[in-house]
């Protein structure tokens, strides 16, 4: 059972570069989420999606973009990477609204901006 798969696991970027973090789930979940975790902190929501073609901002969306063309995939795009975006990024999914079952998390992508 793959669950939620994130790629890459690690990446180093230079300031101003761009990249896409990939997230895929094979549980036919409608809801998908991107969180970031800064050192010593809990996770904060960047963007979420309630289904294909529908996305919305979370707590900390600045500097990021998302798209949801299929139920399975929810990529996160960084344009013009900045040192403040150095963090660990987690993708998650859930079957229905978050209040109706657990969220399942991927293993994370550790991103450093130098």
């Amino acid at each position, binding site marked *: 059972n793959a669950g939620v798969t994130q790629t890459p696991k690690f990446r180093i970027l230079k300031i101003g570069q761009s990249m896409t973090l990939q997230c895929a789930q094979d549980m036919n979940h409608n*809801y998908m*989420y991107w969180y970031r975790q800064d050192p*010593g*902190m*809990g*996770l*904060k*929501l960047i963007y*979420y999606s*309630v289904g294909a073609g529908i996305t*919305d901002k*979370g*707590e900390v969306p600045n500097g990021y973009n998302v798209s949801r063309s299929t139920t399975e995939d929810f990529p996160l795009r960084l344009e013009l990477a900045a040192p403040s975006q150095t963090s*660990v990024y*987690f993708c998650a999914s859930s079957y229905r*609204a*978050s*209040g*109706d*079952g*657990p*969220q*399942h*998390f991927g*293993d*994370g992508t*550790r991103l450093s901006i130098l």
Partner: protein
Amino acid sequence: GIQVEQSPPDLILQEGANSTLRCNFSDSVNNLQWFHQNPWGQLINLFYIPSGTKQNGRLSATTVATERYSLLYISSSQTTDSGVYFCAVLGPGANNLFFGTGTRLTVIP
């Protein structure tokens, strides 16, 4: 958003000891989850427990939603229990989990 406070922030235990971790939250919730983040950074789902009590092996959790707190019990702790334990909650009408800052548990042999 909902405020989530976890205590204690750090805990050191001798292997075999028991412990209780607490999570207080500032508003009513539809969803509460406990996670274990292992030393490799992976988030492991422990419990989905918006109310009531659940047990899974040496771990159990209780949420008293009316009093806005949840407890995670770890019995007969093992070194593999080390890591950070997070509580995360979601309020009515919301879409994202709000995380506490975690309890860092170290179990020494």
